[in-house]
Every structure is written in structure tokens, then in C-alpha cells.
């Protein structure tokens, strides 16, 4: 049978999901062509807020890469929009003048941000929050501007605001009404949310109606109806979405708010369908992913010639993807005369739960602070279960006595676990059993569950525990090192000691690793743990280290490397500077740059030149690439500065000389400031010293990265010797108790500052910790020098050869 021509306008999540479902049902039925107006393949729009919040990159949210289209025989035109559908001739015409015939045509054009028609809304710096382009605009703006204003205190607005905070901007959130997310939360939950977000640094301008955007070319501010103003370099409009119906309209397809479709997603024109956010079904236009996927499933089955159950509309639940906020809402929000409410409000724990019951059925759910029961409650609501015989306690547990798995056990098989992808408990359990799945990732690969917003992963973990029983229970409670083993970090460390295991291969072999030679997660971790445990005798397994540590240089994306010589305390001299300059000139180094840690980096060096560059520099490696002590940043201090109370450079140099090259679970940065003005930023270092009149205050657990954290005061020291002693003890305690790749800030929060202070308060403990530290430090040698002196190392890691042709 000849294939029919299926044409899809739009290349987003709803449309592509429809095609995926269709390809499963009828792989050979259609020639498929897709038009997308964005320059990307299908990406996960829901995750844009995580891109903005810095947790992931645009590449990571691509769901169907170019290969997917190719391998499924789909012709994809990106960056090209359809201008008209000629429904008589069954053709579409693109903005490039391309004309393509179809037998069946799907409109999946999605929606766009609703831009308030305010005077000035066309100024530079005004954007919506809908696609990668918007996201990039915001990231770009954050680099040169300071103040952002988000209009709209709903789901999208708050996620955008959190992202802008992460990008370092000051953020005002403007909301027309007195309560945030008023469509999802009742006043109590809304106030709790506002309090949390205020604490995270958002500034709220409530009950403000925007009337004018100020500025000349670029926006400078926003004026409200009450006459007040706020300054703004960037205005993000997040007041709602508008279905893209322009194309349908000009093509004579019936449109109200969205493109009107029946229960099989058919429009009023034969062979034309609409799916997703652009479609209007029974007066509803959906903006969440779950209903769109449900629609896609029905449409795919219909196009495959299988008569599906008609689409009946969707009941949806909402979550906010902002770290530190756990909320869930579905159905009715506010009580009225026809509802009864069961509420739990624990102000102390910041937990609020409300379930509304109408006619003995759950009609609404609002959860804040603890959303573990959302799946079970949502399932009861969706199935219109009669709850009259349940006690209020069994409808809503207080959240005090949770044991993992208890919730999933009471769920029925058709209860949804992954709302985004419409995957039920039954499907997941069956997949786990049939395919012997043991990890959350495997479940995701097999069923798609957990692969959109990711919030249901904890429930998937519970399901694994529930299905596999003891087999999983043990590992569910603990974090295994990686998928190669069921053992946790502590268990592996204990086994290494008990069985005197001495090499990475031996550990994997004796402890029954699933992959004989491990993976990129466990091998570096094992190499670290072995080195930590065996202190002075361990022979480092260089091939179990990841690229930067193996090569002793930072790899760049084009395969070249960065060389960064050691400059203790950030202090240099004319001789070293000359050598650096000569090397930069001789090897035509493309970029010479001062780093954030007060060092000089030579960027863009080919790997085969590394040993020669090192030799000519004749300086030790600055270890700018390692899980080790990076740099000790110092201010000028008492030697020169009129405010300095302590010799910060002196202490900085001593610290760097003592602890350089030490393997640590993750990188460690230090800073020493000569006075509380803190020019060396000691407050955001793993270990920071702030000079005061009679010594230093020692701050620990600071972090200047994505999760900005101020250091906590560990102790006060009066001399450099004492500073070194406390640093040695603290670092060694971190080395011995942290998970590999756990920064000190996370470790400190896990261990608790008070506990660490208690341990280190004991002089004898500090002495033995330092003893083990000193023993470890004897093991290291200078790696650049080693490469210069050792031909085998040079040949193995730093050589590129010419192949020699033999013609036959």
C-alpha cells in the first residue's frame, strides 16, 4: 500500500508526541513532514525554567534530536513557518514559498506568551517566557543588566523569576491580585509560598496594575495605575498564554480561543486536525503537558485507523518547579458551601494540606511543603472515588510517620505516577517486572515516566522498592555509588578496609561489579576512596581519572587545553611573568586570561605541546582542573594595605604550599583576607580566613557557585600555625566522610556544623586527623615535571602520530 502524506505544522512536544505514538501503532502508514518555526528539533519546553535556573543546558533538553527525525524517515523543515493551508487543494504554503501536498494535516502550533498591550511593550528588553529564544534573551540580559521585573505571579512568572535570581539579577514580581498563583493555591498556601520566595530574594509588588513601560530605546522602568513606578532593565511578561490560531483563521478553520476540535481532535475541515495548546476542546484550552499527551494519543490512534476511545477532556494537577518549594494543586482550590475541607496546617514544619470533598468525592487538592501524597489523592479524585467510608486521617495522613513505599502500595494500577507522560502505576510495575528494571533511569527509558518535569522520580523509586521488595529496599534507602553496584559509599569504604583491597580493578572484581570495568562515575570515585584509605601507599590509577585530572590540564570544547601554572597566594614576579609571556608568544596561545582565582591561564594549547609548554614555563601545575585544592585567593593584607590587620598573603602562601595536590572529594577553594572588608571574598570559600585584630576568623562551607552559600564561622585562630592545624583537621575530616563529588557546602549541611565543631574541638582528634593528612601529603609529586621526565607518560598521553601508508 502506498504511504499517505501526513503533514504537521509545529514541532513541539504535543505534535511530536503524537507522531511518536503514531509510529508505534503504524510505522509504515505515512510519509511524514514537519514544519517548525524555531531552529531546533523538538525540545522539552517544560524544562526551560531549569535551563534558566542554570540546572541544565539547552542541549540537555532536546527530546528528539536530528537523528530521531532521520531514522524515522521524517522530513523536518526548521526555521520555516506555514503561512496558509489551502484546504481545497490540500496543500500548505510556507514563508519560503514552499508548497507541499498532504492527505492529512495536523496543526500543532502551540501557543505564545500573551504580551500585555501596554504603551512601550515594543521596547528592547521586553520579552515573554515561552521558547529557547526568550530564554537566551534573558540569559543575555542578565550578563549586562541588573534589575528584572516579571509581570505575573503565576506558575510561569515565578519560575522565570527564580531563574533570573539564579542569573544574579534583582527581581521584582508584579502581580495584579493579592495572592500568588491564585488559580492553583488558596490564600493560606499562597502566603506560605510568598514567604518562601521572599526569603529566596524575590521582591513582590502585589495588587499592582501595570499601565506603561518606560524608557527610550530600551526599557528603564514600569509604571503602575496607582502612579508608583519601579526601575527595570528587563521586563518579562508572564501573564498567560495565547493559542497560535492565526494560521487556522486565515485558512478558514473554525476558531474561538483555540482551534475548535471534536473528541477525535478533528477540526471543522476534513483531514485537518489540531492538537496541543492551540486546540480548544469542549471550551477548554490546556497549557499543561499531560492533557496534550492524552490528546496526542487519541489523535495518533485515530490516524492509525484504530478507533480510539474519544478524548473526554483532562483533569490536571500543577506543580511549581522552583527549588525549595514543594507544592501541588489540582481541581478546586477554595472552599464553598458545597464542599467540606480536611486540612492539616503545621506552621512549624511549613506544611499545609487541604483536601476538598464534594458529594463524598475529592474535588480539590492543595498541598504545600509536603507533596508525597499528591499521586494517591489525585488518583482518588480522577476516579471519583467515594470517600465517605474513609476517615479523614486515612484521606490525609499528617506526614509524620512516612515509610517509603506506603503511598504507592495503596495506589491502584491505573493511578497516574507520571502526570506529564500519562504513565500509570500499573504500566511501571509491569515494565519493572518484564524487563528486570532496577533504576529510575531504566524505568524512564522504558516507559517515558519521569522524563518531562522529573518531579515523579521519588515515586518511581518507591515503586521500584515496592515491586522488587528487599532487593531494592536496601539500595533505595541508600545512595549507591553508581549503576554498576548495589553498594553505597560507606559500604564500599568498609569493604576496602576489611578486605584490604588495593586497586580499582580489584574492588570491582571482588565486590561483584555489574560492569567489569566500571563506568565514568564509579572509577574516579573508587580511585579517590582507595587513595583516601591507603594514604601513603596507594598507587594512583591514572586511567580511572577523568580527562582533566588524567591530562593535568583543562580540556576545552574544541579538544585543546588550558595551562595554568601555580602562583602561590596569587603572588608572582617579573621572572615568572616573562616566562609566561614568552611561552604565550612562542606557542601563539590564543587566549591569556586572569582567572577568578587570581591566576594566569593560557587557553587553547594542543595536547601534543603540553609537555613542552610545561618545560619552558618551569613552574608547578596550578591544579586548576582537579578535585583538589584549587587556589588560595588573598588580598594584599598587612604587608602593604593600610587597613590590613593580618599578613593575608603570608598565610595564603603557606596554606597553598602545604595542601597543594591533595586529592579531595571535590574541588576546594580558599581565601585569606587581612581584614573584615574581605577583598579575598573569604565568606564564599570552602575555607575562608578573615583577619581581625588578634588573629583570624575561620569560615567554612561557603560557596560562590550556582548555590550561593555564605560560610559559617567554624572557629577563631590566633596564629598561622593554628590556622594550618585547623585547616588540616577540617579538610581531613571532609576527605574521610564526604561522598566523592560532594562539595564542602553540601557536606557541611549534611553533617551539621555543630557536629563538625564538636569533633574538631578535641585536640587529640585534630592531632590524629592531621597525622593522616600529613601522611597522605607525602605521596604526591609534581605532575608536570613527571611528564617532562618520563617518556612513557609523554608517549601514552601527549602524543599524536602520523599513520604510515602501505599500498598494496
Amino acid at each position, binding site marked *: 500500500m502506498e504511504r499517505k502524506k501526513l503533514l504537521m505544522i509545529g514541532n513541539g512536544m504535543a505534535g511530536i508526541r503524537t507522531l511518536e505514538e503514531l509510529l508505534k501503532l503504524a510505522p509504515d502508514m505515512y510519509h511524514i513532514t514537519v514544519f517548525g518555526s524555531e531552529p531546533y528539533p523538538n525540545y522539552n519546553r517544560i524544562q526551560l525554567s531549569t535551563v534558566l535556573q542554570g540546572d541544565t543546558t539547552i542541549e540537555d533538553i532536546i527530546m528528539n534530536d536530528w537523528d530521531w527525525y532521520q531514522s524515522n524517515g521524517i522530513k523536518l523543515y526548521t526555521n520555516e513557518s506555514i503561512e496558509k493551508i489551502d484546504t481545497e487543494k490540500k496543500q500548505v504554503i510556507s514563508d519560503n514559498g514552499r508548497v507541499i501536498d498532504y492527505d492529512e494535516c495536523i496543526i500543532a502550533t502551540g501557543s505564545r506568551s500573551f504580551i500585555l498591550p501596554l504603551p512601550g511593550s515594543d521596547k528592547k528588553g521586553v520579552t515573554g517566557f515561552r521558547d529557547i529564544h526568550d530564554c537566551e534573551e534573558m540569559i543575555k540580559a542578565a550578563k549586562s543588566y541588573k534589575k528584572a521585573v516579571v509581570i505575573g505571579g503565576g506558575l510561569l512568572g515565578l519560575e522565570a523569576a527564580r531563574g533570573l535570581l539564579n542569573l544574579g539579577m534583582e527581581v521584582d514580581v508584579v502581580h495584579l491580585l493579592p495572592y500568588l498563583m491564585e488559580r492553583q493555591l488558596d490564600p493560606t498556601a499562597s502566603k506560605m509560598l510568598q514567604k518562601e520566595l521572599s526569603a529566596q530574594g524575590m521582591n513582590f509588588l502585589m495588587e499592582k496594575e501595570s499601565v506603561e513601560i518606560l524608557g527610550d530605546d530600551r526599557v528603564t522602568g514600569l509604571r503602575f495605575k496607582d502612579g508608583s513606578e519601579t526601575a527595570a532593565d528587563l521586563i518579562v511578561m508572564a501573564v498567560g498564554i495565547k493559542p497560535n490560531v492565526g494560521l487556522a483563521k486565515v485558512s478558514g478553520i473554525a476558531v474561538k480561543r483555540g482551534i475548535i476540535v471534536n473528541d477525535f481532535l478533528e477540526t471543522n475541515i476534513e483531514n485537518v486536525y489540531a492538537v496541543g495548546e492551540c486546540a480548544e476542546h469542549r471550551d477548554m484550552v490546556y497549557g499543561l503537558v499531560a492533557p496534550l499527551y492524552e490528546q496526542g494519543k487519541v489523535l495518533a490512534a485515530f490516524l492509525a485507523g484504530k478507533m480510539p476511545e474519544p478524548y473526554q477532556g483532562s483533569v490536571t494537577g500543577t506543580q511549581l518547579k522552583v527549588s525549595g518549594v514543594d507544592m501541588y494543586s489540582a481541581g478546586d482550590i477554595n472552599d464553598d458551601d458545597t464542599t467540606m475541607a480536611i486540612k492539616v496546617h503545621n506552621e512549624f514544619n511549613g506544611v499545609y494540606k487541604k483536601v476538598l470533598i464534594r458529594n463524598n468525592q475529592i474535588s480539590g487538592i492543595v498541598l504545600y511543603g509536603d507533596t508525597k501524597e499528591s499521586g494517591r489523592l489525585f488518583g482518588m479524585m480522577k476516579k471519583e472515588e467515594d470517600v465517605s467510608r474513609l476517615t479523614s486521617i486515612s484521606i490525609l495522613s499528617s506526614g509524620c510517620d512516612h515509610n517509603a513505599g506506603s503511598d504507592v502500595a495503596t495506589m491502584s494500577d491505573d493511578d497516574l505516577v507520571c502526570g506529564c507522560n500519562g504513565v500509570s502505576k500499573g504500566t511501571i510495575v509491569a515494565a519493572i517486572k518484564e524487563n528486570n528494571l532496577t533504576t529510575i533511569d531504566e524505568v524512564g527509558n522504558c516507559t517515558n515516566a519521569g522524563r518531562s518535569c522529573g518531579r515523579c522520580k521519588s515515586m518511581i523509586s518507591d515503586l521500584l522498592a515496592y515491586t522488587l521488595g528487599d532487593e531494592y529496599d536496601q539500595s533505595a534507602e541508600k545512595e549507591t555509588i553508581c549503576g554498576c553496584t548495589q553498594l553505597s559509599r560507606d559500604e564500599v569504604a568498609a569493604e576496602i578496609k576489611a578486605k584490604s583491597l588495593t586497586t580499582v580493578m580489584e574492588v570491582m572484581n571482588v565486590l561483584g561489579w555489574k560492569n567489569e570495568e566500571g563506568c*565514568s562515575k564509579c572509577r574516579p570515585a573508587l580511585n579517590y576512596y582507595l587513595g583516601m584509605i591507603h594514604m601513603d601507599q596507594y598507587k594512583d590509577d591514572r*586511567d580511572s581519572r577523568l580527562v582533566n585530572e588524567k*591530562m593535568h590540564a583543562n*580540556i576545552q570544547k*574544541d579538544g585543546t587545553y588550558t595551562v595554568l601554572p601555580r602562583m602561590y597566594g596569587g603572588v608572582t614576579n617579573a621572572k615568572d611573568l616573562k616566562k609566561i609571556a614568552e611561552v604565550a608568544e612562542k606557542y601563539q596561545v590564543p587566549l591569556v586570561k586572569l582567572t577568578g582565582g587570581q591566576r594566569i591561564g593560557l587557553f587553547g594549547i594542543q595536547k601534543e605541546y603540553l609537555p613542552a609548554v610545561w618545560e619552558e614555563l618551569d613552574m608547578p601545575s596550578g591544579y586548576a582542573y582537579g578535585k583538589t585544592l584549587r587556589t588560595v585567593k588573598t588580598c594584599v593584607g598587612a604587608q602593604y594595605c593600610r587597613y590590613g590587620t593580618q599578613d593575608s598573603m603570608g598565610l595564603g602562601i603557606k596554606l597553598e604550599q602545604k595542601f597543594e595536590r591533595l586529592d579531595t572529594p571535590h574541588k576546594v577553594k580558599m581565601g585569606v583576607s587581612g581584614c573584615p572588608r574581605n577583598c579575598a571574598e573569604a565568606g564564599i570559600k570552602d575555607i575562608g580566613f578573615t583577619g581581625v585584630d588578634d588573629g583570624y576568623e575561620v569560615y567554612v562551607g561557603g560557596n560562590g557557585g550556582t548555590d550561593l552559600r555564605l560560610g559559617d564561622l567554624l572557629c577563631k585562630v590566633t596564629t598561622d600555625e593554628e590556622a594550618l592545624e585547623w585547616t588540616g583537621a577540617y579538610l581531613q575530616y571532609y576527605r574521610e566522610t564526604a561522598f566523592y563529588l560532594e562539595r564542602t557546602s553540601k557536606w557541611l549541611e549534611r553533617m551539621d556544623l555543630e557536629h563538625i565543631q564538636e569533633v574538631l574541638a578535641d585536640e587529640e582528634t585534630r592531632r590524629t586527623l592531621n597525622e593522616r593528612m600529613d601522611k597522605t601529603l607525602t605521596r604526591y609529586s609534581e605532575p608536570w615535571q613527571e611528564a617532562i621526565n618520563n617518556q612513557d607518560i609523554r608517549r601514552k598521553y601527549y602524543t599524536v602520530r602520523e599513520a604510515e601508508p602501505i599500498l598494496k
Partner: protein
Amino acid sequence: MVNKIMIAEYHSLPVRAGQVFKAGNEEIVLFRLTNGEVRAIENHSPHPKGGTLAEGLVSGEYVFCPVYDWKISLVDGKVQAPDQGQVKVFPIEVSEDHVYFML
């Protein structure tokens, strides 16, 4: 006619550490695996941002891309799920101590 390019002496190849060879316009990495076999792939990651593969961590018949941690088969060049892509694989012949790359 088969073009054979002699690439290396087998004994000189270190185990589990990629060796880079330039052959014409191609940059090829040779991996000698723990099981003794030699595999050759192009020294270029199919990740949209590119990157080299020679410095990757080798485990069994796979290499982990050093820049983005993609797991790539050294047998058929396939990128392992959940990522997707294909690396060019070159046929290799080992005879006595000589390793040949077949063109």
C-alpha cells in the same frame, strides 16, 4: 585494491588509553581493550558541541566521552541511551605486531 595503512606496533599500544593517529584528513583513535582487541574510531564526538574522544575513560568495549560523558560503543560506534548518535568506526587488522587500518 585495498589500501592498508600501518598504524602502529601492537606492543606499543597502552591498554585502555586512546592513541591518536592522523591519516590524511582523518584523526583516528586506537583503543587497545583489556581483552586484547584493538578498536579504532574517529576522534570526534557526535555530541552537538563536538569534542575529542581519545582522552575518554575506557570500560570494556565502551568509551565515555571526556567532555560530555556520553557512553559510546567501540564495537559499532553507537552512542548508548539515553543519548543518541553514531561515531565512525574503522576496520582494523592486526597481524603479528602490526596494526593496520583498512581503507
